[in-house]
C-alpha cells in the first residue's frame, strides 16, 4: 500500500524534525506550567471572592482543569498552517508542493502529524500529569480517556479544516495576520477555551452550541472530565456523533473551497 507508506514516511519525518527542536519543546512545556500557575491563582481568587464554591455547575477545580487543559490542547492543535502557507505562496514554494504527486491537503495534514504526535507526548501528557498531581487526581481515569483521544483526533481534523478554510482567504485578501487573528479570536472564544462555555449567559450559549467551534475544545474536554452531557452513554455518543458530523461537513467544505483556491493560485502563477 504505497500511500500508507508515504503517509508514515511523512509522519516519521515530522517526528524527526520535531525532535530537533529540543529546547523548543522544553520551552512549550515550561510555558504551559507557568500558565497553569496563572490560571490557578486567578480562579482561586475569583472563587474565593465570590463566596460560593459552585458557579454555573463549575467548581474551582473544574474551571481550573478545564482552562489548563484547553491551553494544552491549543498547543497541541496549533499548526502554523496559515503562516506557513502564506509564506509558501509568497515565495512561490507552493507550486513545488502542488506539483508533487500527493494531494496538497493530505500532504499538509500528515506532515504536521509528526509534530502533533510529539506534541501530545511531550507537552500535553506532562501537563496533564502535573494537573493530576496538583488537583490530587480530580480527573477520572477510565474509558473516558480512550474516548477523549478519539474526540481529540476529531477535534484535530476539525481544527485543521478550519485552518485550511481560512488560509485561502488570506490568499484572496493578501492579508495574513488580520484574518488569522479574527479566526483565532473567534475559535478560542466560542469554543470555550478562553472562558468555559458554562459561564456564558444562557441566550448566547444556546447560539454558540450550534457552531463547530465547540467541537474543538469544549467537547473533548467535557468527555475527558466526564461532565454533564458526556457521563452517560447517550450523551457521549451524541457528542462524538456531532463531532463526526462536523468533521465530515468541514472536510467537504474545505475540499471544495481549496480546489477553488488552487485554481486561483495556478492561474496567478504563484
Amino acid at each position, binding site marked *: 500500500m504505497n500511500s500508507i507508506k508515504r503517509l508514515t514516511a511523512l509522519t516519521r519525518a515530522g517526528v524527526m524534525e520535531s525532535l530537533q527542536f529540543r529546547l523548543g519543546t522544553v*520551552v512549550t512545556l515550561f510555558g504551559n506550567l507557568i500558565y497553569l500557575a496563572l490560571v490557578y491563582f486567578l480562579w482561586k481568587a475569583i472563587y474565593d471572592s465570590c463566596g460560593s464554591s459552585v458557579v454555573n455547575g463549575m467548581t474551582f477545580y473544574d474551571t481550573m482543569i478545564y482552562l489548563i487543559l484547553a491551553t494544552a490542547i491549543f498547543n497541541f492543535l496549533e499548526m502554523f498552517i496559515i503562516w506557513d502557507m502564506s509564506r509558501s505562496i509568497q515565495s512561490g514554494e507552493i507550486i513545488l508542493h502542488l506539483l508533487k504527486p500527493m494531494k496538497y491537503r493530505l500532504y499538509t495534514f500528515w506532515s504536521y502529524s509528526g509534530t502533533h504526535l510529539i506534541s501530545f507526548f511531550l507537552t500535553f501528557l506532562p501537563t496533564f500529569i502535573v494537573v493530576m498531581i496538583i488537583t490530587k487526581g480530580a480527573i477520572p481515569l477510565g474509558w473516558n480517556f480512550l474516548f477523549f483521544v478519539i474526540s481529540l483526533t476529531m477535534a484535530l481534523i476539525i481544527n485543521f479544516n478550519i485552518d485550511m478554510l481560512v488560509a485561502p482567504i488570506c490568499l484572496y485578501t493578501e492579508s495574513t495576520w488580520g484574518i488569522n487573528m479574527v479566526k483565532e479570536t473567534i475559535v478560542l472564544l466560542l469554543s470555550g477555551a478562553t472562558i468555559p462555555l458554562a459561564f456564558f449567559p444562557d441566550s448566547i450559549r444556546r447560539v454558540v452550541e450550534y457552531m463547530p467551534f465547540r467541537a474543538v475544545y469544549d467537547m473533548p474536554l467535557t468527555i475527558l472530565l466526564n461532565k454533564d452531557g458526556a457521563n452517560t452513554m447517550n450523551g457521549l455518543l451524541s457528542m462524538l456523533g456531532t463531532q463526526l458530523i462536523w468533521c465530515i461537513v468541514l472536510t467537504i467544505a474545505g475540499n471544495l473551497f481549496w480546489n477553488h483556491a488552487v485554481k486561483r493560485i495556478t492561474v496567478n502563477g504563484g
Partner: protein
Amino acid sequence: MEQTKTLKKKRGLLFYISIYRKILIQDLKSKMSYRADFIISNFGMIISNMSGFVTFMILFHNFPSINGWNYYHMLFLYGFSLIALTPVQCFFDNNWNLRFMVRSGDFIRYCFRPINVFFYFISEVFDVKGLGQFAFGLGTFIYAWCHLGIPVTIVTVSQAVIFLLTASLFMIAIMNAAAATCFWIINSGYVMVIMNRFRDFAKYPASIYNKVFKFIFSFIIPIAFVAYYPSLVFITPDNVPLLTWLSPLIGAFFFYLSYKFWMLGVRRYDFTGS
C-alpha cells in the same frame, strides 16, 4: 574627491530620532499601499479587543469582584494595561520577524551600517493596528477613571503619563528577550507566543498570587509591572507600595538588560544562515 581618513562621526539622539522618523514614514507609506491588508489587520485588532471585552463581561456576569477589586477597578486595570501594551505593539513589532531573518541569513544586512543594529532592525516596522488597541485602552481607562472618581489634577495626569510610559518598558523588555532567544534555539516562535499570552494576565491584580509567584511575575517575567503596580497610585493612593515608585527605574533596568541580551545574541550568532 579625496578619501578622508575615517573620523568617528558623532551620532547622537537627534540623529537617531531623525532617521527613525524618515524610516517610519516610509514604512507607513508602503503599508498603506497594501489596502486590503491594512484594513483587515485593523479589523482583526478590533475583533481581538472586543473579544477581550466580551470575556471580561462574561467573567463579571458571574463573579462581581476579585480579591476586593470591583468592576471599575478591574476596568481601570484593563484599560491601563492596554495603553501600556501599545508601545511594544506599535514600535517593537519587528521582533516577530527576527527569527525568520536570522534563520535565513537575511539578518546580516543589518550589520553593515554605521548605526546601532538593534535600532536599525526595530525601526523598520511600525504597526498601525496597535493604535486600535490604544483607542480601546484609552476609552476604557478614561471611563473607569471617571467612575472611580479619581481627581483630575496636574499631578494625577502627569503621574498617569509617566507611569504608563514606564509600564510599557516592561513588556518591551519581555518581548525583546523572547525574540532574542532565536539566536540560540530553533523553536523560539513558541517562546514569543507564550510571552504574548502572558500579557493577557497583566490585566489582573498581582495580589492574587502567592509569594513565590508574585516574585516571579514581578521580577522574572514582570507582567505585574505592566498594569498592577502603577495602577495602585490611582486605586489605593493612600497605600502605594515602594515598588510602584521604583518602577520607572526597574523598567529602565529591565529594558537595558533585554537590549544587552539581544545584542549578545547578535554577537554570538554565527551568521551561517545562507
